[in-house]
C-alpha cells in the first residue's frame, strides 16, 4: 500500500488515470520503469505518459528505438532480471512485430525453466477503431493474445479500472497485456486517489437486470449501457457485464447472470469469428448454465474485414448501440 493513501475521489480522464497509476508505481518501487517509442519528451503517441520523464528521468522513462521486436526483447530481458517494465506500444497493431518476444518468450519462460524465473512485465496497447487511422492502426487483437497460456489480458472500460488494473498488473509476477481503447482516453470518470488495485480475472456487473445478459468488453460496455437504458422503454430489463479481463475469464459472474436471465448477447469490437464472444458463448454452452438458456446466444462482433478508412464504413464494421438494441429486442421478444 502506498504511504500517501488519499481517500478522496476526483474526476480524471482515462489517460490521466493511467498516468497516475504509472506515477504511483514509479514512486513506490524503484524497479518499475516505463519503456516505449516516444514516451519521453514527446509524452507518448496518445500523450498518456505525459511529463513523467521530467519527474523520473530518462533512465526510468525510456524512449526505445523504432523496433517493437527489439524494445519488447529488452523489456522481457529486463523483467527476467527482476525489473518491472511497463512497455507501451504506439498502436496495439504493432504487437504483430513483437509476437516472438510476447508469445514465445514472455509467456513461456516461467514454464520452460520450471518456475525458477518469472516475467513481471506489463504491456500497454492503445487499441480499437474510431480514430480514422485505418486498417493497420485500428484493430482489436485482444483475442490473439488471450489465446496464449502464460499471458493475462485485460481491457479496462473506465478510468477507475484503467488505474486499478494497471496497478494490479504491476503487482502481478507474470506478463499482463492491457488493451486501452483509444476512444476512451479522453473519457472522464470518478477515480479514487492513492494506490488501489482492480482484481484481474474479475468482471463487473455494471447494471443489474433480469431479462437478458449483455457481456461487453472495453468501449462496448458503454454502448451496452446506453442500449440497456433505451430497452427500458420496451419493458426489457438488461443486465450489463463488463468483462474487464479476457484471460483468465470470470466464469462465475457470467454463468450466474445467464442462469438468471436465460439469454446472452456478447458484444466486442474484435472480429466476430473466433473472438472473445465465441469463448464466452462456448463457456456458457459447456456449463450448467446451458440448461437456463431460453433463446439462441447472440454474438455482436467486428465485421469479417479490415477496418476501413472511410469514417462511415469504420462505424459500420463494429457493433453500435442500435445493433445491441435490436439484438436484445429480438431475443427477448422471441423473434429469433
Amino acid at each position, binding site marked *: 500500500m502506498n504511504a500517501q493513501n488519499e481517500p478522496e475521489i476526483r474526476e480524471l480522464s482515462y489517460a490521466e488515470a493511467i498516468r497516475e497509476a504509472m506515477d504511483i508505481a514509479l514512486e513506490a518501487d524503484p524497479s518499475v520503469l516505463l519503456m516505449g517509442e516516444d514516451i519521453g519528451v514527446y509524452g507518448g503517441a496518445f500523450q498518456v505518459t505525459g511529463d513523467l520523464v521530467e519527474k523520473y528521468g530518462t533512465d526510468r522513462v525510456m524512449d526505445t528505438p523504432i523496433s517493437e521486436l527489439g524494445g519488447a526483447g529488452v523489456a522481457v530481458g529486463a523483467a527476467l532480471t527482476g525489473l518491472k517494465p511497463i512497455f507501451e506500444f504506439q498502436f496495439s497493431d504493432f504487437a504483430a512485430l513483437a509476437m516472438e518476444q510476447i508469445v514465445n518468450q514472455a509467456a513461456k519462460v516461467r514454464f520452460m525453466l520450471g518456475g525458477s524465473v518469472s516475467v513481471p512485465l506489463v504491456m500497454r496497447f492503445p487499441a480499437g477503431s474510431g480514430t480514422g487511422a485505418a486498417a493497420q492502426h485500428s484493430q482489436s487483437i485482444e483475442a490473439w493474445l488471450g489465446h496464449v497460456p502464460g499471458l493475462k489480458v485485460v481491457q479496462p472500460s473506465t478510468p477507475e479500472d484503467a488505474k486499478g488494473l494497471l496497478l494490479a498488473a504491476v503487482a502481478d509476477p507474470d506478463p499482463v497485456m492491457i488493451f486501452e481503447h483509444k476512444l476512451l482516453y479522453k473519457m472522464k470518470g470518478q477515480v479514487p486517489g492513492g494506490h488501489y488495485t482492480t482484481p484481474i480475472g474479475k468482471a463487473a456487473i455494471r447494471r443489474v437486470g433480469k431479462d437478458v445478459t449483455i457481456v461487453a468488453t472495453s468501449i462496448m460496455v458503454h454502448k451496452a449501457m446506453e442500449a440497456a437504458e433505451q430497452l427500458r422503454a420496451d419493458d426489457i430489463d438488461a443486465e450489463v457485464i463488463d468483462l474487464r479481463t479476457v484471460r483468465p475469464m470470470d466464469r462465475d459472474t457470467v454463468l450466474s447472470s445467464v442462469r438468471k436471465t*436465460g439469454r446472452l448477447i456478447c458484444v466486442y469490437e474484435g472480429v466476430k469469428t473466433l473472438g472473445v464472444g465465441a469463448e464466452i458463448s462456448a463457456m456458457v454452452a459447456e456449463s450448467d448454465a*446451458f*440448461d437456463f*438458456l*431460453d*433463446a439462441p446466444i447472440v454474438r455482436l462482433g467486428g465485421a469479417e474485414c479490415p477496418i476501413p478508412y472511410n469514417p462511415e464504413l469504420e462505424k459500420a464494421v463494429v457493433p453500435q448501440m442500435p445493433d445491441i438494441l435490436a439484438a436484445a429486442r429480438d431475443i427477448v*421478444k*422471441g423473434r*429469433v
Partner: protein
Amino acid sequence: MPVEVIMPKVDMDMASGKIMCWHVAVGNRVEKGDPLFDIETDKAAMEVEAPASGILHHAAPEGAEIPIGKAVAWLYAEGEDVGEQPSSFASVGEPTAGPLPDPEAAPEALSTDADPEPETEREMAFADGAGEGIRATPAARRLARDEGVPLASLHGTGPRGRVQAFDVREYLKGLTTPSAPATFRPETGPLVVTRSKGGKGTPILMIHGFANDTTSWAPLEPSLRHRPLIRIHLPGHGRSPKLRIRDFAMLAREVRQAFDALQLDRAHLLGHSLGGALCIALADTRERQLASLNLIAPAGLGPQINGEALSGICKATRTESLKPWLRSLVANEDLITDAYARLAMQSRSDANLRAAQAAMADVLFPDGVQAFDLRAALERIRTPTRILWGKADAIIPWKHALRAPGRMALHLFDGVGHMPQFEAAEEVGNILRSHV
C-alpha cells in the same frame, strides 16, 4: 401436337407447387395469357397464365402437388385428336423433386387427394422438429423435465415452432385453468401470400384487418394496379394456417417472417386496422426496406376498440347474426346487403377459422381493449406516412389518429366508417395512387 403446360418456378427455393384451382374447365378453350390456374407453394400463391391458346385437357386435379418443370395439363388445337394423356403426372415423390421421397406416394402415381395432408404433415414435422428431435430451448427442456411434462405434448410458440420456457409455463397453467375453446385446433406453417398480376416498380404490400381477409382490398385494388400488389393473409384468416397467437409480438413476428421471405428490396406498406398496427411494427424493424407507410384506421394507437362488434363477428355462425355486426363497420349501412353478408358468412364458414380468430381476439383485445400500444413505434418512424380514417368509425375512434407525430399526413373522411377502402374506395385510391 398439344402444348404442355408446366408447373412454373415462381420462388427461388421452390421444388414443387400445388394446384389450387383451375380457371378453365377441361374441354373449354383458353386464350394465351389468360389466367389458367392458381398454384400455391410453401411461401406464396400465384396465378399462372396460359402459355398458349387451345382447349384444356388432361388437367391435374386440384390439390395435386407437381414438381416444377413437370406437366400439369395439355392444350390442344381446335379439332386436334385428344387421345391418351401424353405422359402421366410426376409426383413430388420422384427423385427429381428432391432428396426426400414421400413414402405415402407411390412412384409415378399422382396424389389425387385434394386434402393437403402430406405437405402439411411435412411442414409440421419440420416445425415440431419431429424425426430430428423436438425443437426446444434448454430452459424449456429443464422446466419440462423438472415438472414431468413430456416435451412432445407441448406446443411451441417460438420461431420455427420452438418450445420455450413460456410454453411449458402456459401448459402448466392450462392444467389448472380452462384452456381456449376446445374447437380451436391450432395449425403451424408460414403465412400465405398472394400476388396480383402485372404492375411495375416498387410493390405495395397489403395487410388486412382482424376478422377480415384479403378480399377487403378488392374495391381499392383497381386504383393500385400500376404497382405489383402483394397481400399477406394473417394467421387464422383467409388461407393462412390457424396459428395459436400468443401476443401481438408473435403476430408481428409471423408477419415479419412473411415479409422477409419475400426478399423485397423496397415496398410500400398498406395496412387496415390490425393490419395497420402490424405495418407500424414491421416499419419499426424493416424501415430501410420501406418506401412509404399507409395506414387505414390503424389499431395500436389507443386502448379503445369496439369489443362487442369484434366478438359478435367472431361468434356469428349465420348470416342473420353476422349482418348487424358487419353494419357497424360502415357508416352507410345500406352497403351491407343480404348478399354481401351471405358472402362474408361463407368466407367464415370454417368453425376452426372462427375459433382461431376468437382465440386471437382474446389475446389481442382482452376485455375489448387494445392490449398493444404502438405509439412509441410510430413516433420512431421516419418513412413518409399517411393515416386515413373515417370520422364515423364505430370500431376504433378516429381521434386516435391525432396521436400520430406531426410529420405524418392525416386524411379524415366525413360520413365514412371503419372501412374507408370500401366506403370511400375512389377517394382513398386517389390519395394512395398519388404517392405510391
